[in-house]
């Protein structure tokens, strides 16, 4: 038994979970082509959720601040991107991939810029006064979420908004009898690129080193002579921008968005960080991929259970590891 677990942990330990899940799904689904389609969809979904969740996880790890308003960045990102895309509709429909790209980039940039600005505002105005006070922190960020959702309702109205996709991301590839939606592949690749960039910053730069150390023991980093609070506002802004970017990508993925999007994604994001463990981006990625895969597999195998599956997954993980699969070392 100990031998097996030693071998497992050498092979990757908890990181094998998504692989195990997809192998089991392969057996249950039976049809390889459906399985590939579902797996791609699950990975794409997981990557987008990862973008939304990573900031929340890092911010909590670094400063013990849990921002219940985090999903407001997601929904604002989605709605801003949708508006920009609608506004640049002419470029989207054009045959030129360059124009398509430009419109998409404009939408994502708008979302990211909003995330940075809103993150700065949130950190300095809303959260800073209640740093060490969890109770008031939860209440105030919850209040901010209510206000943000109402603001979305006021600006964009309550009816669903359709999101145009750029021409070159429309449709799907057909490889043999496997269909892969182009947008999903794109979402996965973009998410992967962001993850690699994040990983590189955290593991190859001095700022990343300070962030990782700060997540483990903020006091000790300060005793070594480095200010965490200045680092923190940067992390908070980056996390908010990532959430907005995730929201923007999600808007293109869903193609129809409603103001309820923020609340829906908040639950998913919370489940992801609870499963993955707060404070580590590897854990968050693991949780996000697991949730994405499960959502698609179960949605295919037993649609009625789709929602409960996240819940069951969360409960199982908590029973096994109360702090999540891979929390930051504390």
């Amino acid at each position, binding site marked *: 038994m100990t031998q097996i677990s030693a071998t497992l942990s050498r092979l990757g330990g908890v990181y094998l979970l998504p692989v195990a899940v997809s192998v089991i799904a392969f057996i249950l689904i039976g049809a390889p082509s459906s399985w590939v389609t579902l797996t791609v969809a699950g990975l794409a979904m997981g990557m987008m959720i990862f973008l939304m969740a990573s900031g929340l996880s890092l911010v909590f790890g670094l400063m013990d601040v849990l921002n219940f308003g985090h999903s407001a960045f997601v929904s604002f990102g989605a709605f801003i991107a949708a508006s920009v895309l609608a506004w640049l509709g002419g470029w989207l429909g054009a045959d030129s991939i360059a124009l398509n790209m430009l419109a998409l980039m404009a939408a994502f940039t708008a979302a990211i810029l909003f995330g940075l600005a809103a993150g700065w505002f949130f950190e300095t105005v809303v959260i800073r006064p209640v740093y060490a006070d969890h109770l008031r922190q939860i209440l105030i960020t919850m209040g901010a979420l209510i206000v943000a959702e109402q603001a979305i309702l006021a600006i964009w109205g309550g009816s669903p908004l359709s999101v145009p996709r750029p021409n070159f991301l429309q449709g799907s590839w057909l490889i043999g009898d496997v269909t892969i939606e182009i947008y999903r592949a794109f979402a996965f690749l973009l998410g992967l690129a962001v993850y690699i960039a994040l990983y590189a910053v955290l593991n190859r730069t001095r700022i990343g080193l300070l962030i990782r150390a700060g997540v483990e023991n903020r006091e000790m980093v300060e005793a070594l002579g480095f200010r965490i609070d200045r680092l923190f506002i940067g992390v908070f802004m980056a996390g908010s921008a990532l959430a907005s970017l995730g929201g923007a990508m999600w808007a293109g993925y869903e193609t129809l968005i409603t103001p309820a999007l923020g609340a829906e994604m908040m639950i998913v994001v919370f489940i992801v960080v*609870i499963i993955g463990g707060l404070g580590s981006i590897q854990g968050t990625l693991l949780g996000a991929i697991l949730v994405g895969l499960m959502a698609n597999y179960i949605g295919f195998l037993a649609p009625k259970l789709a*929602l409960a599956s996240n819940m069951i997954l969360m409960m199982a993980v908590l029973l096994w590891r109360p702090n999540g699969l891979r929390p930051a070392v504390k």
Partner: protein
Amino acid sequence: MTQVTNGTRIVKAIVLLIGALLLFAPFLFQDVRSIEVAARICIFVVLVASYDLLIGYTGIVSFAHTMFFGFGAYGAAIALRQMGPGWDAVALGALAGVLVSIVVAIAIGLLSLRVKAIFFAMITLAVASVVMVLASQLSQLTGGEDGITYKTPEVFKTAYKLVTDADGKVVKVFGVKLNGKLAAYYFVFATSLILFIALLRIVASPFGTVLKAIRENEARAEAIGYRVVAYRTAVFVIAAVIASLAGTVYAIWLKYTGPDTALNFSIMIDILLMVVIGGMGTMWGAVNGAVLMVLAQYYLRDLMGVAAEATANIPVLPYLLDPHRWLFWLGIIFILLVYFFPKGLAGTIMAKGART
């Protein structure tokens, strides 16, 4: 800080006045809407007070309180629809709601109260929203988005005559018909009063003292030998049971149970607002908060509509005053309150008295 101050006396006097107004509400305000308001206040006083037991006395934040309220409401609703209007259905529904609440509360408590308090808030939020979606999906049981309408015991029917005169007509006292509607109101009032008093007793008991010790200094309480997780789980269960019972009573009063009346997250937000406005950790604050919020919900929104119309010619103002912006303003008030008056109304008044 239980010393009797002028502020405490003022707060208690206000609460007594509110109690008296609620007791005579059917005679004082003789229109249908006022009775609705009064009954809603009774229910929410209990709901908010039981939530205060969690957040104010134990310092744990749960976003699943509406879920327990919903268990009680749906328990009664389903039983009444399946078994017909009878007290047996009410009892069975209440019992089922309470049992489900206990099981779920223990499961959540044991799973998450031993880790960080903040995990608990997240997990309750996740569980509550899953239950919400489940309720709308299991429509053959719960009626889905439409909810369930049903009949309640005979004695609560508006047409039921409590006291008849020689002609067989319902007797009027001070112009109020002694009918089933009145009986239903006093059923709500009495059960709410009993539950509220039970909460007051719990807070004043040795158990309540331990809770305060845990809130003040968790490590110390643990060191003295109190099993913090067990106490927290116990409080969570007690609060859940009371919320569930309040849900059952509300379901009987409304004769309708649906997501909007028993399960939606907006009710959770209402509870949060009430407990923060009223003042956490006082119990009395729950009364003030519930009264203010319910009154505002029923009357201030109308007022906003009127104001928006009156200012229709002025730019921006009517847009800001639109009744649809109601929750927006409430959210901002909520944030400002948490910043500047973390003790809420009751707490602030009580503290004032202490200084003079």
